[in-house]
């Protein structure tokens, strides 16, 4: 048995930080909106953008999202820093799209570039960014604890359909509560994996990878189930599943009314324009 000399890795190994779903501290117009208003507005924008991903729609929605980001004073630092591979792939995709033969094609030096193909790729990219960022604004400007009560109120009509809405809202509240804990545990699991030495066995590398994945997945699930056990104990200690109340959640302010009306009007107008 010899001491393993680990491959010399660059010291710049950074722990990825989850920058979504974290409240950017502040007390802006957007922060003070009721969580339900923001969720409705985002849902409307998402549906509109998906229905009519034209330049007009995407431009208007991007402007609304940008306005919300500025009004909510979300700093640039809050945006996630994605791995370099992600951007590389993105650039490669754009390049590949521009290589198309769809006219009009312009020549940049020896390279033929299809402008219409590039436009299509950029519209798709813009659609993706809008879909992700519009939801992220809610996460950045809303305390997590406010999401479940707001949804509980919004879901009132569905209770009449005898759907187990309360069960789902409790599940959502717990999912929001448990996600950071689980991410933490997965991080520890990954750290433990990095501390391990190369096994001495004579498995083929592929086989070893399968065993390792199986070990990690099993451990993650077993540890999580133990956590579920504790969670259930904690719920039973408080009388069972219960329900998330929405009694104190009264949204009726002029801000919410104006935002709701404004976004709804714009979304409706965009859809009508597209249908005409």
């Amino acid at each position, binding site marked *: *048995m010899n001491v393993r000399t*680990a491959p010399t890795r660059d*010291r710049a*190994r950074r722990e990825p*930080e989850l*920058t*979504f779903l*974290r409240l*950017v501290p502040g007390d802006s117009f957007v922060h003070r909106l009721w969580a339900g208003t923001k969720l409705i507005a985002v849902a409307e924008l998402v549906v509109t953008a*998906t229905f009519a991903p034209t330049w007009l729609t995407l431009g208007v929605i991007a402007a609304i999202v940008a306005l919300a980001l500025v009004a909510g004073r979300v700093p640039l*630092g809050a945006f996630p820093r994605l*791995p370099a591979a*992600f951007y590389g792939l993105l650039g490669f995709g754009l390049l*590949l*799209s521009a290589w*198309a033969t*769809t006219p009009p094609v312009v020549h940049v030096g020896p390279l033929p570039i299809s402008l219409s*193909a590039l436009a*299509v790729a950029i519209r798709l990219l813009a659609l993706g960014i809008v*879909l*992700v960022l*519009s*939801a*992220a604004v809610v996460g950045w400007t809303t305390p997590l*604890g406010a*999401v479940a009560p707001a949804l509980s109120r919004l879901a009132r009509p569905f209770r009449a359909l005898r759907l187990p809405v309360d*069960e789902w809202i409790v*599940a*959502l*509240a717990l*999912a929001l*509560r*448990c996600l950071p*804990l*689980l991410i933490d545990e997965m991080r*520890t699991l990954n750290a*433990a994996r*990095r*501390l*391990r*030495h190369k*096994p*001495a066995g004579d498995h083929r590398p592929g086989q070893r990878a399968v065993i390792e*994945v199986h070990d990690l997945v*099993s451990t993650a*699930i*077993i540890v999580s*189930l133990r956590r*579920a*056990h*504790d*969670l*259930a104990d*904690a*719920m*039973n200690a408080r009388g069972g*599943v219960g*329900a998330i*109340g929405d009694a104190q959640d009264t949204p009726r302010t002029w801000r919410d009314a104006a935002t709701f009306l404004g976004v709804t009007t714009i979304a409706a107008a965009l859809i009508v324009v*597209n249908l005409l």
Partner: protein
Amino acid sequence: MVDTRPVRVGPGPTTRRGPLRAGELAEAVVLADLTLVAAIAGQLLPPPVSSALFVIAVVPMGVLGARNRFRALLAGTIAASATGFLVLGVPIVTAVVSCGALGAVVGTAARRGYGAPRAVALAVTFLWPVAALIADLFFWTFAENRRLLLQQIHNLWSGAGRILRNLHLPWLADVVDHVTTWCITYWWITVPLLLLVVVVLGTVLASRLTGPTLRRVSAAFAADALALDPDQPDDGAAIAPLPVSLSSVVYRYPGAEADALRDVTLDIERNELVAVVGRNGSGKSTLARVLAGRPPTAGVVRRSGSAGLGAPNGTAIVFQRPELQVLGVRVRDDVGWGLPPSVSVDVDALLDRVGLRAFADRETSTLSGGELQRLAVAAALARHPQLLISDESTAMVDAIGRAQLLELLRSLVTDDHMSVVHVTHHRSESAVADRVVSLDGGRVVDAPPAPPPAVAVGAVAPRSRGGDPLLVLRDVGHVYARGTPWARRALTGVDLRIDRGEAVLVVGHNGSGKSTLAWILSGLLAPSEGEARLEGMPLTSATGQVGMTFQHARLQLLRPTVGNEVMAAAGATSFDAWRALSDVGFDPRTMSPRRIDELSGGQARRVALAAALAARSRAIVLDEPFAGLDEEARSTLTAALVRMRVEHGLTLICVSHDHDLPAVLVDREIELADGRVTYDGPGRS
């Protein structure tokens, strides 16, 4: 690998009807969250890894589907989708819903013992038509979106065609052209066909991973049977937990081979503080559960009504691990969690009562262990319980927090006329009690068992400084999430030199930066300022050479059995693994084949220690090595560590929030506060 025997799963998942119970809901939420974590990672990583992560993301849902009703899977999928929407928008919702749907198929197949062909048949019969219909309907309704996507595909192919033509393969280019044009024209056929490929591949791959995983999960929980929901006798009796009288009570866990409680006779009156003292495994937590309303296997429990766990005027319980019983994101939410909306609670008054004034709007994740336990008491008080059971609530809390908590428990009896049953392994804590009940081996005994004989510790001369430097930290500082609004400084200007053979205690409160220091010392984290070196080499390029045991050691034991784990983690031969196991005080013959999931917390830490030893680690960092251990487990672990020092000359770095480490493990103490070293000198315990 392909083993298709039916997997024995949870307690009759399909037989239950009606609303989800706490245990089912908890399992659904946690497993769906796990799927979400994998899906998020999959969205952020490049294609080959992301596809693998998608398959992995199906597995928790498959386990959920195999162990539980469809209703639980549905609730979990909805909760994780909504959570995911706030993280990464619509794309993640699609991923989570797909995982949920595949998980339903894979789970059902695993439960019924289907092999790959039948699992695929199941998926193609039930899942694929629905998915295909939904996809076609979506693209039909969202026509502009469809045109955009198809145009993009056309463009990509036309570029590829040009390349083929340049390569003088015009015939191939023509074929590609025809195929693409056909696919785009008949998109309503192409989309279902693509989905068919995804469904079949996903089912095959996820089944391969889910089956064996499920088998390991079932084996892990066969021992304690994971009885999530105690069958509360819901006989409609009035709630009256006190006085309670137990006579000849026996309790045996389902599937266990021995009784956890034997012939226990005991009375709890109104308005008294009773301490239940015993070692780990003496049955004291089981006794707490019987007092909280779980029906015994034999014997009689007499109350004037029902225990009413969690009900107003009933029984409340505070558990051992503080961070696990918090259900609310904010302190205010947690106090009121689960109360019917009709009940109004004066949250501020309750928080004031437990000494957490002005905590109402803080996030629960910012509270220390002791504060969380007092929060749990506040949540209990919101229901005006007559009986409060503290199930080792002090075990994971530091000395100051412990004293505050005990004082609070005492005052509940003195001032609020409640009864409190305090379960503990700290015999000294029985001083606050009116009455002490000692348990040993599931029986009530007259006197607590004698403490285990003190370990014969050879004289270990404290090392004098100025030896052989092993770990050197120069002006190390660390900021988490630097450059974001959540930047948090954990360490500032730490200069440290740890010599070979030293035994160092790093002590500090929650948030003092001690865990960050531990991660840096073990090479897991590159400090954002300064440099950390192991014998002159950057520590991050030597990850694995400094061993580490985590507080939650179960997370680092990945193989199914102990012997296997030590060999795999250390890359060691079985001979070295055996020697390491005996060095940490185990009998390798009985211990080596033991299942990892049968280990107690203390044993798990010793197995991790054995792995670090077998790997010939230069130093070992131990994160909270003694947290939650009873006296016997403490002394066994101490003996193992002392032996490592004496026989192997190993450098030990213990990180703890407590000073009560045996002096023999502390040559030197380093105190951290707010990320700075505030004391560095001889041990002060």
